[in-house]
């Protein structure tokens, strides 16, 4: 129904704006300052509200929804602690450029600044971790501000936008005619679409001359919906392709042209290729320190092309030779056109010598682990998960060793399937993010891989999963340690395991059961596949799989912080071999 021109209160305007934006789900938690909005939500059934158990989870769930669908996530929290609890989730979305609108209640305008009950300067607190934020002081600005918020969140380099709304602005007794602008024009914000054709031509010329090229792709390819263009470019050029943690799945990871993730826990072949490359084509990636290692040693022989929608990403950490600012999909389309015009018709791999070198590195088998252990190796658990789910899975993750094992051992062939907090590294992200994914795709298999430390950070969300009957599967790699912290302590602090042991763990099976879910515990490698099959066969149940894994396993390869890309620790089982 067209509500334009109808008299609405501020609270009704908020809800109507969400309807006009096509919002399916709002993840939130009520409180004093948002009660008018909750009353307006109650009176309609178009926007569904999902009641989380902590505001951090509201933001993570909205974030997970956005990552899986490409649409804007929406969360709604009250003033004061509601907003501060959401900050971790907002910052998580900000670091990974996830489109999100977070609506927060605020104390009434006349008492702002008086240290009123549940007052906090939300706009001030969130300023450094949002793409933009607004405080709406007049109900007449509300509709336009919300339209701007969605527009800013979704365009250019996406990101979270906070709209802080004082309670009196949503007063049900003050009604004004509703006008929701379809188009928004902002003189101060004009996101770039197409890349500069001259620059793209320069890039293609470099690529044509390349002897040892590497395509280095990141989350921007996923966010920019450019997986198809990337795949075509890789196929056409025959260049090897490596991806950051955030870009996994944009190019099929099972394809032989994919040489693995790069960076701190990247593959030997990917990092060595980066070290030796003469032309690096960075696409929607931001040269994060976990990728580059020591900047002085980063790609020492390479001319660098960098495609990014955000001009401030260009030459921020690493000086590039050919910057191209534009939407990845549009730039790659132009690049493909130029390549087809100029490239000689090739068959097979045009850079054969380079591939021979890469295959040599590949034979090192850097992800080697003990497959005959009588303990469940975490790598084995992820491989089993892949086999049981046949690669058709939305996998969310918490942060730590399990996250890296999943990235290394679960090959995603589609974008938006691997959902994790890469930039901020937020423990507690996985379970609430999985709620957003499962709501977006009720029929899909959704799992959250976690550790016993991470999962406890948002464990309360098992109640939300029960309330909305979300059949998520939690795969807990339980090693009794904050595994990644323990690993660093083993390597760099002479095994002084300061506070990285998780003592007094709950019985996860009983804990899951107490929330009304199914809990299972697996201790032997031989039982794992069957347990996972049983879990995923329960299509309408939330199942918590507590998998007891080898507590001493480390993530390899590893580049220590501050080291160059070629200075990798390989698994100890390989260390007696001579490496190039």
């Amino acid at each position: 129904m067209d509500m334009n021109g109808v008299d609405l209160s501020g609270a009704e305007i908020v809800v109507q704006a969400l309807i006009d934006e096509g919002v399916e789900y709002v993840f939130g938690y009520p409180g004093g300052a948002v009660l008018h909005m909750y009353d307006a939500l109650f009176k309609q059934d178009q926007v569904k509200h999902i009641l989380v158990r902590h505001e951090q989870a509201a933001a993570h769930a909205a974030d997970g929804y956005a990552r899986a669908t490409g649409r804007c996530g929406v969360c709604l929290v009250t003033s004061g602690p509601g907003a501060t609890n959401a900050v971790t989730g907002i910052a998580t979305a900000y670091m990974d450029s996830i489109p999100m609108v977070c609506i927060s209640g605020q104390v009434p305008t006349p008492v702002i600044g008086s240290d009123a009950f549940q007052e906090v300067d939300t706009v001030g607190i969130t300023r450094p971790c949002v793409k933009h934020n607004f405080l709406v002081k007049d109900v007449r600005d509300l509709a336009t501000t919300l339209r701007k918020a969605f527009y800013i969140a979704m365009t250019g380099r996406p990101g979270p936008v906070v709209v802080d709304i004082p309670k009196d602005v949503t007063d049900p007794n003050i009604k004004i005619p509703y006008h929701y602008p379809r188009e928004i024009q902002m003189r101060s914000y004009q996101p770039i679409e197409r890349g500069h054709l001259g620059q793209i031509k320069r890039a293609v010329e470099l690529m044509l001359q390349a002897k040892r090229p590497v395509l280095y792709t990141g989350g921007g390819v996923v966010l920019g919906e450019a997986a198809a263009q990337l795949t075509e470019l890789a196929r056409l050029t025959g260049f090897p392709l490596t991806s950051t943690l955030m870009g996994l799945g944009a190019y099929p990871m099972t394809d032989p042209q994919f040489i693995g993730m790069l960076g701190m826990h990247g593959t030997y072949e990917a990092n060595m290729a980066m070290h030796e490359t003469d032309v690096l084509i960075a696409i929607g990636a931001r040269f994060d320190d976990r990728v580059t290692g020591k900047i002085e040693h980063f790609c020492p022989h390479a001319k660098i092309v960098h495609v990014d929608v955000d001009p401030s990403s260009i030459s921020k950490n690493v000086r590039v030779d050919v910057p191209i600012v534009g939407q990845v999909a549009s730039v790659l389309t132009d690049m493909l056109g130029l390549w087809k015009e100029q490239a000689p018709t090739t068959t097979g791999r045009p850079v054969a010598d380079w591939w021979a070198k890469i295959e040599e590195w590949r034979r090192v088998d850097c992800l080697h682990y003990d497959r005959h252990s009588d303990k469940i190796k975490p790598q084995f658990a992820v491989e089993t998960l892949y086999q049981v789910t046949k690669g058709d899975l939305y996998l969310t993750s918490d942060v730590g060793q399990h996250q890296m094992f999943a990235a290394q051992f679960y090959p995603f062939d589609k974008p938006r399937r691997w959902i994790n907090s890469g930039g901020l590294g937020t423990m507690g992200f996985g379970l609430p993010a999985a709620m957003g994914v499962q709501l977006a795709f009720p029929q899909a298999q959704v799992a959250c891989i976690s550790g016993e430390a991470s999962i406890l950070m948002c464990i309360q969300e098992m109640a939300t999963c029960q309330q909305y009957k979300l059949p998520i599967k939690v795969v807990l790699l339980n090693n009794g340690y904050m595994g990644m912290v323990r690993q660093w302590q083993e390597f760099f602090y002479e095994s002084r395991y300061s506070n990285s042991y998780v003592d007094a763990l709950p019985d996860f099976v009983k804990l899951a059961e107490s929330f009304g879910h199914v809990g299972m515990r697996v201790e032997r490698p031989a039982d794992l596949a069957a347990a996972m099959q049983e879990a995923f066969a329960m299509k309408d149940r939330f199942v918590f799989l507590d998998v007891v894994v080898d507590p001493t396993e480390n993530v390899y390869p590893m580049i220590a912080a501050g080291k160059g890309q070629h200075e990798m620790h390989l698994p100890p089982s390989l260390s007696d071999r001579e490496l190039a």
Partner: protein
Amino acid sequence: MRHIIAVLLENEAGALSRVAGLFSARGYNIESLTVAPTDDPTLSRMTLVTNGNEEIVEQIKKQLNKLIDTVKVFDLTEGPHIEREMMMIKVRAAGENREELKRLTDIFRAKIIDVTDTSYVVELTGASKKLDAFIDAVPAGLIVEVVRSGPTGIARGDKGLTL
């Protein structure tokens, strides 16, 4: 190198704190910052002075541009420009110092804008270096108070930093 960067901003609440926050969050130097509305009341113009190598200044400009409230960013130091800062300086002006300070004021083409039996307030406008020179020239111990606006600037020639 020292850069004078002019920024046209939407005249919105909080725009100033976004810029100030950007500098502190990213660890950029900021020597001074002045801001006021322009002839178009919906726009503020900010002038900020910063120090850094070319890469850092390039990043500063990009990050400023990235702020949603930023309409335009212009590095005045990239071309011919005029820089002006205003200072009011209160000095002890009693006895023999009184005549000396008056002479100094004339040499610098400054103005005395407040007089008491024992003090002057001197107003001086110019490039920041000229203001520094005046402060250095005041005999030791005579300065009571110094107020400086921070530099503002405008490009030479017929082109303007407008919408």
